[in-house]
């Protein structure tokens, strides 16, 4: 099956009220071509799951500052003053989660786990709204699964069947998010024919990927 599509083939997937997860850490490993396109679709009332708010004038940060977002589940917004303003004005609800808990919540969704017990956040505001459990005398937060309707992830290479290889520190949230959404759209810098990627090097199996978009080189 050839999963490579053009951007406008994705139109039907994007509707109001979606929960979308976006891979990347600051300016690295985010699907800029796809985000740039989604921003033009005018969809509303989104819930966004992402590590950080990026830089406000650039790529992911610009998407987040301009999109119609109701809620963000995120570990860090300090690099993007636009998001801070929207949070303070009440325009966006921001749920801040420790980064390691956030990735475990996403991993739980993709791995069929009911949650993980994490010591991170005990004795802090991160406990709020979470169940705290004691095991052998030590307190843990129960971090529950976090999934999305759509994951927008970024790879370096993809084959037409959807196998993915990442590059250097551009992995970050991408391979984990690839397992945690109903529909997974992967952007790749290089798209090759099936058989051209070494089986031994594939990091995300094609079973997780629904659509492949080739990066616009000018947005890399």
């Amino acid at each position, binding site marked *: 099956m050839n999963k490579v599509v053009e951007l406008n083939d994705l139109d039907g997937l994007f509707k109001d009220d979606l929960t979308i997860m976006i891979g990347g850490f600051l300016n690295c490993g985010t699907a800029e071509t796809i985000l740039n396109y989604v921003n033009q679709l005018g969809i509303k009332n989104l819930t966004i799951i992402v590590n950080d708010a990026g830089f406000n004038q650039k790529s992911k940060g610009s998407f987040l500052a301009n999109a119609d977002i109701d809620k963000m589940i995120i570990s860090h917004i300090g*690099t993007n003053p636009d998001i801070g303003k929207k949070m303070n004005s009440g325009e966006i609800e*921001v749920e801040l989660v*420790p*980064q390691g808990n956030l990735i475990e919540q996403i991993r739980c969704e993709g791995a069929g786990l009911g949650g993980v017990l994490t010591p991170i956040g005990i*004795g802090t505001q*991160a406990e709020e709204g979470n169940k705290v459990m004691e095991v052998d005398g030590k307190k843990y937060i129960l971090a529950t699964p976090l999934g999305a309707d759509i994951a927008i992830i970024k790879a370096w290479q993809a084959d037409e069947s959807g196998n993915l290889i990442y590059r*250097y520190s551009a*992995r970050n949230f991408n391979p984990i998010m690839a397992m945690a959404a109903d529909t997974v759209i992967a952007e790749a810098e290089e798209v090759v024919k099936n058989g051209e990627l070494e089986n031994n090097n594939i990091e995300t199996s094609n079973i997780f990927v629904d659509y492949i978009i080739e990066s616009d080189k000018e947005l890399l």
Partner: protein
Amino acid sequence: MSEVKSKIASRIAEEVADGDVLNLGIGIPTLVCDYIPDDIEVNIHSENGLIGLDREAEEGFEDKDIINASGRHATIKKTGSFFDTAMSFNIIRGGHLDMTVLGALQVDQKGNIANWMIPGKLVPGMGGAMDLTVGAKRVVCAITHQTKKGASKIKKECNLPLTAAGEVDLIVTELAVMEVDEKGLILKEIAEGVTLEEVIDKTEADLIISDDLKEF
């Protein structure tokens, strides 16, 4: 200010042992690298997904896919490796980091640390700071002793939202080196040219003066 920063960073570098796996936060902690002697080999972990972080990339040699946790273009040692965020935080949470060095807004005599928000003013988020303070074997806080307005950052009890409770092991300021102990906060060293009275005067926390008080 640069003198203050280098005083703190160079003292923290003395805490680093050969073979340590370290995570260094943004600001003064990053400078610690510059003071680690050449005969000590360390592995620097960066929470965005690598071990073996090296210096920032020189202009013209940046690779868009190699960054540090501040989002700046970096380089990696020949023996370094990359991984995803789940693995990166397994390393942190699983006790595989020998030391993390972090900045803070406040620390207190119980080893509490606050460095992720000022209610109503500044809410950057915790990022990986809660994970690092709980997960690392040793937590070293690199902090200037007082705020710009002259208030002590070394408190009896933090009044800002905590990053972690009771996790700080060592506090290094431009004036003092203090260790958090079951008994309280032990003043171990005072900076050259600074009097004990001055340190006590500028510290809100109760200090237990070490019998073996040294100068640094």
